[in-house]
């Protein structure tokens, strides 16, 4: 029964938002109805995603078949919920919902609502997909609405850099698929893109495919020096629709879903350099964020810094490091999206996010101020929040072999703490800027904004105080990734076979193979 419901829920999760986007964009003319429909669709997806997570998310098998069917030629409709993506589904839906609810009614025209829903649908498709081609298709698709937005942003360089980012992602992923198809054809595989089929076949995969996926993942994460598109879009792109597309853990998810399990030898080779690149990115983002005057730029560079930390943890390839990185990838999405939402709310009310024009907002908006303070504390890993646990684990993972990177990350957390408090001080505290008259009508959080903020804080605090269940959800995924290490060391044993071994332990395998 559970399986039947799941078989229904999985396609609903990504099809409904995409259909909703189409309906809102083309079939509804009236702005109020467009908003209502978009928010209704997001609520439905959020509830289904939460239900899926609660029903089977705690089952922490790394890879399990939930739904598998041939779709078109070698493209297969193969999707699953496991420890790696279970939490990401409701989280992504919640962020899209929060974006829709927070967007001022005047801004939430058909285009914006449709783009948010399209990003939601494609991101959920990415997280669910166990087929490389489907995943790549959704991956590229998730960036297109943002690209559309940048066309309207009146910044040609931003549009250019976004175009380059999408083109590079598309080229890398398509090239990887072509090479996968070639490798599959050489091995006589019926489904060359299916991650599980690849694992079962045991065909050695050319490392260049791993490099291409790695490039796409690092670009999506915004790792230095591939971060320009992300920070530029974070500052200049239309905020509410850009937020779910920009601040997502898709990049780190791609690393954990494709690169680490299928290319363990490559991961082992590049582990050291990746740790250092991650640490340098973390420091680079932190150094840039500390000097900014624009709140949106502060948050964009802070995100880059956080992604550096995530990469560093993942690249350690040991259990505490990977656990910490996966947790950090999740918590930083919530925190950065929360901070960005507040920045956008300030922008919507004051007309600017330049902190030199702001100041003293606490008198007008104490709730907004408290929200920013709590989110900042959480984002810099204050004890009692999820990020504290994540950073602690990531640093413990680094200790054995990468002490320098661990020390760098400690410096980064200190700088980031100063950055966010400085932003808090300049925006919300103090005597009020000389432009205070323009802020006279500045309103505090109201209605859904307030309720969403309280729910967000509660989730972060409860998750931080009782982190073990969150760690347990991903324990299976981390454990499976750990098992890949000895496989990499044994030259005869192909890494993909480990996934198959892991897969065989999972229930329902045989039912789905047909």
């Amino acid at each position, binding site marked *: 029964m559970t399986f039947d419901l799941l078989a229904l829920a999985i396609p609903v999760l990504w099809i409904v938002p995409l259909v909703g986007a189409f309906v809102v964009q083309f079939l509804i003319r009236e702005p109020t109805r467009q908003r209502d429909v978009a928010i209704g669709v997001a609520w439905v997806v959020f509830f289904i995603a939460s239900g899926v997570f609660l029903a089977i998310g705690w089952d922490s098998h790394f890879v399990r078949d939930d739904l598998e069917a041939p779709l078109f030629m070698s493209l297969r409709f193969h999707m699953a919920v496991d420890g790696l993506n279970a939490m990401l589904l409701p989280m992504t839906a919640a962020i899209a919902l929060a974006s829709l609810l927070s967007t001022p009614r005047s801004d939430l025209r058909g285009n914006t609502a449709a783009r948010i829903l399209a990003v939601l649908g494609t991101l959920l498709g990415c997280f669910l997909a166990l087929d490389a081609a489907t995943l790549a298709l959704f991956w590229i698709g998730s960036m297109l609405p943002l690209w559309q937005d940048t066309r309207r942003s*009146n910044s040609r360089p931003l549009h250019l850099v976004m175009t380059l980012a999408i083109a590079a992602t598309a080229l890398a992923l398509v090239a990887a698929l072509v090479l996968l198809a070639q490798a599959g054809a050489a091995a006589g595989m019926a489904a060359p893109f299916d991650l599980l089929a690849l694992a079962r076949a045991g065909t050695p995969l050319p490392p260049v495919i791993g490099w291409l996926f790695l490039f796409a993942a690092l670009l999506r994460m915004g790792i230095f020096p591939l971060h*320009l598109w992300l920070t530029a879009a974070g500052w200049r792109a239309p905020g509410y629709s850009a937020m779910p597309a920009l601040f997502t853990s898709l990049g780190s998810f791609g690393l954990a879903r494709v690169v680490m399990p299928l290319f363990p030898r490559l991961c082992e080779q590049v582990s050291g350099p990746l740790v250092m690149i991650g640490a340098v990115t973390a420091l680079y983002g932190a150094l840039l964020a500390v000097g900014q*005057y624009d709140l949106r730029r502060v948050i964009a560079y802070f995100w880059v810094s956080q992604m550096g930390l995530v990469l560093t943890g993942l690249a350690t390839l040991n259990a505490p490091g990977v656990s910490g990185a996966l947790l950090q990838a999740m918590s930083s999405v919530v925190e950065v999206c929360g901070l960005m939402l507040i920045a956008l709310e300030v922008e919507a009310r004051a007309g600017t996010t330049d902190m030199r024009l702001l100041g003293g907002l606490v008198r007008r908006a104490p709730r907004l101020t408290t929200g920013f303070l709590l989110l900042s504390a959480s984002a810099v890993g204050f004890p009692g929040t999820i990020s504290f646990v994540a950073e602690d684990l990531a640093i413990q993972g680094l200790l054995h072999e990468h002490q320098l990177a661990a020390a760098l990350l400690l410096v980064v957390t*200190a700088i980031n703490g100063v950055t966010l408090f400085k932003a808090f001080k300049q925006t919300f505290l103090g005597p009020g800027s000389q432009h205070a008259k*323009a802020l006279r009508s500045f309103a505090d959080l109201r209605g859904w904004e307030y309720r969403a903020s309280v729910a967000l804080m509660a989730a972060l605090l409860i998750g931080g105080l009782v982190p073990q269940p969150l760690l347990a959800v991903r324990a299976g995924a*981390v454990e499976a990734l750990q098992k890949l290490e000895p496989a990499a060391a044994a030259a005869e044993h192909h890494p993909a076979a480990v996934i198959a071994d892991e897969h065989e332990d999972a229930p329902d395998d045989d039912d789905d193979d047909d």
Partner: protein
Amino acid sequence: MLPDLLSAGFALAPVWPALAAVVIAFLLLPGRPSERVVARVTAVAVWLSLASAACGVLLCLSHGPVDYRLGNWYEAAEYSFPLVMLFDGLTAAMSAFVAVIVLTTVKFSVTYLHREPGFVRFFVLTLFFAAGMQLLVLAGSAELLFIGWEFVGISSVLLVAFFHERAMPVQAALRVLVTYRVCDIGLLLGAVGLHHWLGTTVWADVFAGLPQHAGETAGLAVGLALVFAAMGKSAQFPVGGWLPRAMEGPTASSAVFYGSLSVHAGVYLLLRAAPLLEQSLVIRAVLVVVGLVTAVIAALSSQVSADAKSAVAHATASQVGLMFVECGLGLYTLALVHLITHATLRYYQFLRTLSAVQDAMWQQAALGRTDSDEAAARWEEVAPGPRRALYRLALERFAVEPALDRWLTRPIMNLSRALDRLEGGLLALHARTPEAGTGAPLPLMAPDLSPDAPAPVLSPALRPDAGAPEARV
């Protein structure tokens, strides 16, 4: 059975204030609760905390030191975060002292802050601080101590910025935060280093493992990292410039934080980690030198301070410097007695500052001179040249802060700006519009010229004729 009950009771000392802070936060959700309710909840929590501390004193008197382990907070593969507390004489004495001081502060502040707009905020932060301080004292591992340390730090910063409508308190709070964050790296490095070096951060296990690892460089590094953390929290040279600035907060918080408890947390860390620190002669020498230099600089600065709270703050740093010296010389009992007596005296002095100024004015009116004048007269015996030089140095606080700003803060900010210019150049986003990152000119959004674009909505502040305001750092 009795030791278990007493241990459980003692372990609850940080829980009561934390619970009360959460309760008040919940009361704040629907709207501002009454002062009476907040005061009652707070009073109940701090009385319970005092009762817990009393359990600790009884436990130590009847059963001696107890290593109280509550299991793991979280674990991932081979790593776990242990929840462990160490109950010994030092813990019991400090915990009881913290509870008494916090209770007195709460009683004092209910009247002192009556009808103050930030009344509820003050009590939430004080409870938060009390929980952090008790956790710091009871912690049986460096990691748990770090959590208490951070609680104390953030509540301290937010109380310095209590009067947030003025610029100076907010600026001072940023200064305090920067020092705390930088020096907290020391405590983190110490904890992480202990884990790497000895495989544990639990004090009891660390001390048990020390004899097998005596004289190792890792021990020196860990010890120096812990000393650096203690220097930041206890306002020692060269990172003590934040202390006089922190006087911007309400007097009650100045008394409890910078007169008695928070500023002595560094000394407590030294006492707690004493078996580790005394292994190395270098660490002891560093403690003595840092303590002596701070004592001299702070004592002289105190003499020339123009306001009473700053004078007491400098005097506090000076005495804490002497405690560092005592720790460096291995006089731990003396340091603990010095800590408690000095903290009590300063607490009283801070609370009395306002009325002491009043007294001095009466004294001046009646006698034509004050005690301060008599103290200043003693300097007349020093030759004018050295006296003038000392006066100037003391007035400028020996130029420690400008030197740190010049050699540390400014290079970091310059690097940030250089990187931002590099990014701007790479992106060419600033080709037609003024720089908006770290540069001075403000951004002016280019108008959208496409036919279907909505009319740009710019606040008056962003209009081209608004002019660029001075940058506030």
